[in-house]
């Protein structure tokens, strides 16, 4: 069931100005990823899409879901390249090329006084986006290049380097055409290396949005069909 969304006037203007909404587009097949609106112009293969954290939200890494021990980042971005935007309903392919974190602080972790860095390793990751109703966004690593994140933490005992890998080598989120967001909730990571002071597991939650096609002039919003 498709749901129509109100166009952003600014985005529409930008798209029209860029000539990216030809009449033929309306007659053509609607792919999984479109810009401007549901059923709008298809996102071209090779286009870059990206998003920051949703305004007013943070990315968090909990030791256990809902725990009082966690790391919060107020800045995080992701960026991907569309590799196979197939007709809807279906599953589009992307390559996750960027995911970063900054302005991170620890809370309730007794030995840790600061977060030096959180770095996502082994990029790019294969990513899929599936049509409604699942709206699933699935990031998958490979055996040789698993989904991995390295945290450097300052503690009273030294600088702790904790390396975590995604459970089952995948991270799953949900896209939402309201706000063009992607939400990850309690995605489990397992400690791959590091001292015992690193939590055995980390649970990642974040909501990114709005997702925009930055290759297209005006960076129109991206919708899932």
């Amino acid at each position, binding site marked *: 069931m498709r749901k129509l969304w109100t166009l952003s006037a600014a985005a529409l203007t930008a798209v029209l100005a860029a000539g990216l909404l030809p009449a033929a587009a309306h007659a053509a097949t609607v792919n999984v990823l479109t810009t401007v609106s549901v059923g709008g112009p298809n996102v071209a293969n090779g286009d870059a899409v990206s998003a920051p954290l949703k305004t007013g939200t943070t990315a968090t890494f909990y030791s256990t879901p809902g725990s009082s021990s966690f790391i919060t980042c107020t800045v995080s971005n992701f960026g991907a390249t569309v590799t196979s935007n197939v007709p809807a309903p279906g599953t589009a392919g992307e390559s996750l090329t960027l995911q970063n974190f900054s302005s991170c602080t620890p809370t309730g972790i*007794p030995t840790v006084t600061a977060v030096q860095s959180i770095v996502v390793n082994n990029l790019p990751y294969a990513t899929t986006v599936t049509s409604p109703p699942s709206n699933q966004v699935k990031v998958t690593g490979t055996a040789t290049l698993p989904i991995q994140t390295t945290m450097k933490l300052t503690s*009273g*005992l030294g600088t702790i380097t904790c390396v975590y890998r995604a459970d089952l080598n995948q991270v799953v989120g949900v896209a939402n055409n309201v706000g063009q967001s992607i939400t990850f909730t309690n995605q489990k990571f397992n400690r791959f290396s590091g*001292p015992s*002071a690193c939590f055995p597991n980390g649970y990642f939650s974040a909501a990114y949005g709005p997702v925009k096609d930055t290759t297209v002039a005006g960076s129109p919003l991206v919708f899932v069909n």
Partner: protein
Amino acid sequence: MRSKRVSAATAVMAAGILAVFGTPASAQPAAAAKPTGIYAGMGNCPLSSPVLADPGNQQVGCVISVTRGGSVTIGSTTVALTQPITLQFGVYWPASGPTVEFPDGTVANVFSTVPSADGKTLTSSPLQVPIPGLANFLPGVTSAFAQVELAGPITEFIPLATGEPAPVFRLPIKLHLFNALFGLRCYIGSNSSPIVLGPTTGTTSPPPPNVPITGDAGVIDLASDPNGFGAFVVSFSGATLVDNSVRVPVANGCGIGGSLDWVINTVFGLPAAAGRNTVVFSQTDTSLAVDSSLGDLKQAIAASAH
């Protein structure tokens, strides 16, 4: 004649055992409020040590560690650790103090240690040691009792080595042997030539013929001070620390004038080169209280005491 020998042997053995167990009650310090909660067992932390009070220290702390199982293997002789071994000491790390970097990028502070306030940094009880090639029908005569004793300061205490393939600390020990014939000053190892243990919760890299073995960091718990002080406690429960790269030196002081040293050396194959011996400390519970301020740490521990 025979009965006199047995009596003498019994007396020597009894003297040895009394020397081990016979701490009179009057020697005990006056009862004082003992730390409880996350600071339990830290009553002998050397909080009055001038070394800990050095203003150059960035971190100071207290350690209590109790091992309730495991084994010591020297050559082909294995002794089960059936009695608790307790370590208690203070630690400090000066600003810009020594660090060590592990392969995963962790840069760990290397703490120095201060002996326990009561002088009992390491306490243990005697363990019966079979004498290779000899049926043990009369313990203390056809076997020996061995007690682990400290042979120098504990060094290179690295809390973040827990879970890493690196020693958590360096522990110099000597084994005090008690037997009717060995006398009271019979040791394997000495203060000048100790058995230096470097136990790890990670995986060892021993010389052959030993092969790598792996310890276990146990269950870690991190706790902030419950009364609002700045101290925090890191505890490891049920850990197993292993070292099979340890070298065991020769015996000394056994028999009159060391006349039986060669017997000990022969039956235990001493000196035993690294790669032929194994130490396993299992069921080890360790708590480390750390604070950036000695005064704050003192108050935190005092506030927990009942």
